[in-house]
């Protein structure tokens, strides 16, 4: 039986990373150093999810993981979605990107990929106010295409010629996520009420900055982490999109 869990759950399941890497290199030709997975897990910890086989007899429970704790159990990883936010969106719009998604052949058609995607999409919208999520898919990958387009509602944005290392073309697809955004107005209202309580009648709360600022602030920060293969998929993704 398979569980879909957040990579950075409470408590953390970050010790799944080596098994996620193995799942990736077992299934896909686009591979990365562990450090690239770490980079995802430590930059956008909310966005990645893992499918694990529940151990026989369930997980041990611990003080912090009272209902069951995956950490330290090293269950078999049969699927994962590794996702990120676009660091320098060319159009200035915050958006998410699926770096890699795969489910073991032995565990297909249990709805795992769909659940992984939905969890990641929601986190992108809530945590990072992503306008949309983008991804690439091999044109020959009918099953994946069906999932993205028919089940999840992605639309083909364009075709990218020779996107993959073996020369195959990719569909660049995207899905709008704004319907899942948090209601900031409501949060600010609650902030104001709290402040009023604290400061008596004089609570005058500022309205907050505009949404776009966050993106810019983030983009200015330097990234010193070596990523993936020198010109592996991680980088290719950036390059191809900035060409557009």
């Amino acid at each position, binding site marked *: 039986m*398979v569980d879909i869990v957040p990579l950075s759950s409470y408590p953390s399941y970050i010790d799944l990373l080596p098994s996620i890497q193995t799942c990736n290199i*077992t299934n896909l030709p686009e591979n990365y150093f562990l450090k690239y997975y770490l980079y995802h897990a*430590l930059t956008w910890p909310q966005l990645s999810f893992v499918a694990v086989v*529940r151990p026989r007899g*369930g997980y041990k429970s611990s003080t912090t993981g009272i*209902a069951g704790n995956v950490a330290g159990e090293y269950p078999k990883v049969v699927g994962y979605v590794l996702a990120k936010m676009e660091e320098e969106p060319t159009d200035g719009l915050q958006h998410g990107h699926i770096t890699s998604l795969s489910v073991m052949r*032995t565990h297909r058609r249990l709805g795992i990929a769909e659940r992984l995607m939905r969890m990641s999409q929601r986190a992108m919208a809530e945590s990072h106010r992503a306008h949309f999520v983008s991804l690439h898919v091999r044109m020959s990958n009918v099953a994946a295409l069906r999932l993205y387009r028919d089940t999840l509602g992605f639309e083909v944005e364009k075709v990218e010629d020779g996107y993959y290392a073996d020369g195959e073309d990719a569909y660049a697809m995207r899905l709008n996520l704004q319907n899942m955004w948090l209601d900031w107005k409501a*949060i600010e209202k609650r902030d104001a009420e709290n402040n009023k309580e604290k400061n008596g009648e004089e609570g005058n709360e500022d309205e907050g900055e505009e949404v776009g600022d966050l993106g810019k602030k983030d983009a200015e920060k330097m990234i010193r982490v070596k990523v993936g*293969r020198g010109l592996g998929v991680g980088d290719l993704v950036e390059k191809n999109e900035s060409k557009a």
Partner: protein
Amino acid sequence: MPETLSSKDHSLFRQVVHHFEMKQYKKGIKTADQVLRKNPKHGDTQAMKALNMSQIGQLEEAFALAKTALQNDMKSHITWHVYGLLLRQEKNYEEAIKAYRFALRLEPESQPIQRDLALLQMQMRDYQGYIRSRSAMLQTRPGFRQNWTALAIAHHLAGDLAEAEKVLTTYEDTLKGATPHVADMENSEATLYKNTIIAETGNVERALEHLEAVGYRCTDVLAVMEMKANYLLRLDRKTEAEAAYTALLERNPDNSIYYNGLIKAKAIPESDHKALKALYDEWVEKNPRCDAARRIPLDFLEGEDFKQAADAYLQRMLKKGVPSLFVNIKQLYVNPAKRDVVQELVEGYLSGKATNGSAESNGDNNEFLSCTYYFLAQHYDYHVSRNLPKAMENVEKAIELSPKAVEYQMTKARIWKHYGNPGKAAEEMEKARLLDEKDRHINTKAAKYVLRNNDNEKALELMSKFTRNETVGGTLGDLHEMQCTWFLTEDAEAFLRQKKLGLALKRFHSVNNIFDTWQEDQFDFHGFSLRKGMIRAYVDMVRWEDRLREHPFYTRMAIGAVKAHLLLHDQPDLVHGPMPSGINGLDSTDENQRKKALKKAKKEQQRLEKVESDKRAARKAAAANAKGADGETKKEDSDPLGNTLVQTQDPLKDAMKFLAPLLRSSPQNIEAQCLGFEVYSRQNKHLLAVKCLVAAHSIDPSNPTLHLQLLRFRKSLESLAEPLPEKIAEVVNAEFDKLLPKTQNLEEWNESYLSTNKGSVAHVQAGLSGRQFLIPESKPQCEQDLLATLDSPDITIDEATAALDILNKWGSDKTAYAEKAGKKWPESSVFELN
């Protein structure tokens, strides 16, 4: 005395620094040379030149120059700082910290030196040092939130939760009520970080209170929900916990942990199957496509209820044609009754009894049929329900209906593996691969099966279909670079089985190096994560890195590596390559035969070296300047066959490199403890050997390997060449007496082990080895008894192959055993002696 520079040279020197910062290393070196022409002994310039050199692969020369620079100018923070940086590059962290400290003493205000020192202290887990560094950095720049957070992390990891929380609160107070914007993720994360610290103090009540106050404005919504549910349940606030877990399940009904939480919150007793089933049914209704809520009840339901639920589940999945049905079901088989019910149900579908009368159209029925055959094939292949002829029969029928289905063909290969015929299994897996050559998963399987058949070369060739073969070192180079631990480990194990120890050690070391890299990987994040502000994830990472080698990938590799070293110690001739078994055996007395075999082995080794150097030359010609993934020019491996590793003077000492972390990280692994005994006893480290025995005994006192070791250790204590030092003898005897008392008659003890454990072939094998060890004259009888275990209804093919090794150790003739086993498993190849 240090030289002073003219103003022109001084500006040149500043250029050197600038070039370095801009990563223009070659220019930096050139400019430095300009300065050095006039000021040949200028320490700072020499140091900066060295630093530039270190970045373009000239670390050794850089080191020499940096030392000269230090001699020329001992009072410069630059020469010390650079020296520290070079030491760090060489991963000599302790010395690097000292160098930074010197530099800092000379230039206490320097932010870069302080920062570099702090990063290393974190890497080295010198928390007290890190606290000092971080306090100093905070004092210099208190305006930056990350400096506060960093100090809090330092206290937190050092175990001072109260101080950590205080630091975070002090910063919050400086905001004076100016609430940061919702979009301020650094703030959101710092808030949640503080909350986890409060929870770690054990005061869950306060953690919950804090979370209720601030959680609504944290954008990591799922985390807040998980934390809240967790706290509520721990506080036994049932109604609220129920709501919290319900909310989590509404987001993700595919997580059994949330159901556990909900059930605990509702206080449904484990035995109330009816209530539990009703709960899960509710979630099925809400999420008709969710698997978990349908599947989990099969775990607890019993009897007729189970049968009904299983029937519904199986039929639904088979009709949908879900190929992963069996992997989802097999965990139920720990309960033999459930196993039998599943078998009966699915067999029933085929005979048409229970298909619920729903007349399918022909096409659908075909899919239903092939899926059902496929399910039964896996069922009869699975170890607790194994009936290989039936498995084969079913898989053939499935393949007949869907000849293109990769999974069906894969299962056929698997059945051959379980038949004990790795050659045929690899062949069948290759057929599966050819059905979908673009799929890496099946390619991976095919390569793995080829490795199980000890064909390393063919495996690499298969792997090359999905690797970047232009990488330095070709396919293997790419697999190293992409940290493909499964392949390297399987490759190593295959070499070990063939007693090609050089290559086996080579691969084991590669995996070990990958773990070292993973540990090193955290370094960049000590700074990076503070800038990014994702503090919870960072702290999780630091803690995980501290237990990195607990990972089963490490355990498996380390166990293999220790075995390889032990084999090399016991059979030093293997340094020249594999030799026919029997000659390597302990009974090899024929010196002539040994020499002949040695000669042959050496010749083969020379051939291999030639092949390897040809390959390298070919690669060199193909890509004159191949680059690694990170753009650095990488050198070809100068010892691809692992000669230096295998030619070691002290294999046992080398084994410690793997054994020590293994025992530290996985003390509960009995195989590790037993291997520890093997290494320590050969080193005459009696105390450590006994410690391993005690540990193994506490895990499983009747473990077969341990049983034999206990006997051997008792005997060895009786026949020590020279007595142990008194104090050691005292401890060893006291500890060991608890496991196997001195007064105990060993033969009786062994016979009683045999009779107590007569139901288990592995235990009987150990008992027979024990008898053969205690009474060498009993060998013929032991051989007879070992042969008789083949008549046991429970013996597995793996146990039978293990018996061949046992006979090897006894120096016995294996023919009779192999013949009888070959007849018992007629499809097998593993009993063919060559």
